[in-house]
């Protein structure tokens, strides 16, 4: 056998060894690690959900899957992913933050919402008021929040997804009042933020400000976060007030394509998000006070989720428009908060 053949065969063998070795590692990888980058109040939800999914995945494939969680203000989390935080999946507070990852980070396709049912929002929530025991300031609806001497706790809409839902819910209420318009809504929201003493970066921080630090008279809160606070503190500490109008908050989930491609975790990442739509996943969401999409699971937990008039992001022209108009640099929030 001549030298050229020897050399070619050896190179082929070594190349094969490298790839077989790599593939072998993948084939024998019994522990898979995912990173779920989420927003502030989902800590408890995903602790429960991850445990359930790991059991499901072990039973289905025999592989161990470990899901690491990262939580923070939704906007800030999206920024971290764009900056390189290797999230296999994002489960953020609103579609605009996932859009930012697709548009600015180019880490997933722009049509990511179409890849899962319910435009990739497997559970919903809304915005309610959390007040102190006995509601000493008699706060019943949005209009009470702008009265003098009322301290309103809400996070910074520039970093928090929940804060943007809060803002838009307040705007929607004002616009629906007699004689209401975008102009009156703007003045209302401006007055509301004058009563905000502290802007936290995320919803969990706002809960801490209100509950643990004792600041303010009312916290604008995710419904699930309000239930959780009441569960942990007891109804003798805080009460939940349901306003006349609120907004359908739709937290969005997506696989981060470029990360799962690099890590070889696409299959398990996709299955992880699909599991949110299963009856088991929906039940876990409901148990953690998120409104399930599944009608049967929703009916089972209906006492947790009072019916109220809900506007949607479509009433603001969709997230792309709302984000740019209200929360973009120089947008309405910047204008009213700077004044």
């Amino acid at each position: 056998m001549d030298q050229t053949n020897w050399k070619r065969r050896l190179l082929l063998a070594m190349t094969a060894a490298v790839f077989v070795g790599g593939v072998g590692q993948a084939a024998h990888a019994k522990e898979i690690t995912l990173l779920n980058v989420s927003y502030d109040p989902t800590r408890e939800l995903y602790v429960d959900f991850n445990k359930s999914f790991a059991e499901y995945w072990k039973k289905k494939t025999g592989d161990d899957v470990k899901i690491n969680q990262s939580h923070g203000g939704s906007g800030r989390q999206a920024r971290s992913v764009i900056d390189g935080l290797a999230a296999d999946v994002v489960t953020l507070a609103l579609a605009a933050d996932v859009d930012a990852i697709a548009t600015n980070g180019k880490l997933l396709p722009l049509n990511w919402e179409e890849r899962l049912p319910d435009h990739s929002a497997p559970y919903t929530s809304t915005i309610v008021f959390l007040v102190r025991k006995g509601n000493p300031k008699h706060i019943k609806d949005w209009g009470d929040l702008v009265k003098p001497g009322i301290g309103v706790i809400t996070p910074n809409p520039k970093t928090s997804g929940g804060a943007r839902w809060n803002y838009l819910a307040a705007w929607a209420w004002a616009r629906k009042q007699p004689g209401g318009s975008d102009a009156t809504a703007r003045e209302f929201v401006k007055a509301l933020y004058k009563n905000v003493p502290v802007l936290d970066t995320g919803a969990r921080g706002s809960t801490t400000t209100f509950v643990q630090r004792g600041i303010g008279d009312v916290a604008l809160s995710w419904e699930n976060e309000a239930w959780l606070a009441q569960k942990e503190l007891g109804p003798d500490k805080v009460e939940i007030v349901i306003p006349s109008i609120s907004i359908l908050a739709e937290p969005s989930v997506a696989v981060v394509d470029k990360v799962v491609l690099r890590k070889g975790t696409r299959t398990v990442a996709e299955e992880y998000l699909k599991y949110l739509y299963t009856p088991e996943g929906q039940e876990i969401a409901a148990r953690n006070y998120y409104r399930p999409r599944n009608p049967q699971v929703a009916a089972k937990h209906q006492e947790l989720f009072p019916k109220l008039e809900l506007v949607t992001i479509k009433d603001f022209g969709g997230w792309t428009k709302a984000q740019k108009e209200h929360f973009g640099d120089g947008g309405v929030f910047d204008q009213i908060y700077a004044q």
Partner: protein
Amino acid sequence: MNIRRATALASLALLPFAGAAHAQDAPSQAGVNDDLRQEIEAQKQRLAVLERKLEIQDEAAKAAAASAPRITASATRFQIGSADGANFIRFRGTLFADNRAYAGDSAPETADTFLLRSVRPTIEGTFGGIYDFRITPDFGSGRSIIVDAYAAARFKPGFVVTAGKFKPSVGLERLASEPDLKFMERGLPTLLVPNRDLGVQLSGDFAGGAFSYQVGYFNGVTDGQSSDNLASPDVESDTGGDYAARVFLQPFINSDNFSLRGLGFGVGATWQDLDGAAANPYLPSYRSQGQLSVFSYRANTATGTAPNNATYSDGERLRLAPQVYYYRGSFGFLGEYTQVKQDVSRRISPTVLRSDTLTNSAWQGQFSWFITGEEEAFRGFTPGSTWQPGKPGTGAWELVARIQELDVDDAAFEGGATSFANPLTAITKETSYGVGVNWYPWNTVKLSLNYDKTSFEGGAATGDRADEQAIFSRFAINY
């Protein structure tokens, strides 16, 4: 925290005055109490808000710090990395400013010289905690070359893939990095093993480094040479490639204090088989320890239409390199033996081709001792103290000694005019004794002084080549 406390104290200090002012204006005691209570509540809220704002600022600062790039600039390291440490780029370099002097008539006067032996800035880094790279050019000795340029993937400790230009794992002292060398110039066994070559290597460590292996395939280079020494630098011009392999054991490396903890031994090897051609001899020349050329095979002397009569590599080449080191406390020993079996041919006439297998070998034993008490090791050490004018501390001082020999196969000189090497110009053996002292006044600075006396067999028109006494000194920066 101090600001928070000061704010709290100031606010609390004001409360009685605020309360007193209201008390004077209040129409009734009940009203006074209500006003006071409201004022206290308002002050408490203001204080809580201030505290919370400071808390949020602290959290934001910590979050920013946690995600901020990490920049390290220390006495030994210059590095930029990501917050999680998985990605970084490091800047390193070596600069060796040497003086070479030869005692007596052991070398031509022109050999005495200052030179920049090595000027090597290095950029290296890691991505994703797994993928490494290194780029090292060398501007020393009046040339510009790429010394190292490779990428590596550390899939597992036992499964690492390296590709590019780097040191094939064969000779022990060759694998030591320049800053870790005990002598300014590597020993004679290193003349027989490859320096840098282009190729791919699988390697790994098992049992915490107790067993390591390397297996590679390279373009192939002549003894002691790099691929940049080829006729077309870093471009293969022959038909053969080098298969290289090495195993190394440190059986006691994981013991706590066992006396043989610093023992390591193994063997490296390369094998090549190529179709030779006199136009591309692909054979080495060898240097003395004083870096003067003392051996080469016969070059082409044919004229006119006579065939090229240079000695050339023609067939197999097998290198074997058993090796050992032992480090304990301030003492160190490194020993290695290298043997090269090389098929050579030389066309004596148009009809006569002379072929043979030559066996050249070399060995060395080198000893090192930190008289200032630092621990000897194959890779790296930290001076126990640094030396700065007017301040306490001597830096690290190290004494070194070495004995070594290179033996060229006698068969290379047989056959008179038809021999593969000319005994009148090429030595058949050199034996060298060397001593030296290294001073490390600073972590990154090393001053060396070496003395090597080398005696030869053959290599002269009459008798043996004169003994060589080389006195080398070096000012080195390694960062």
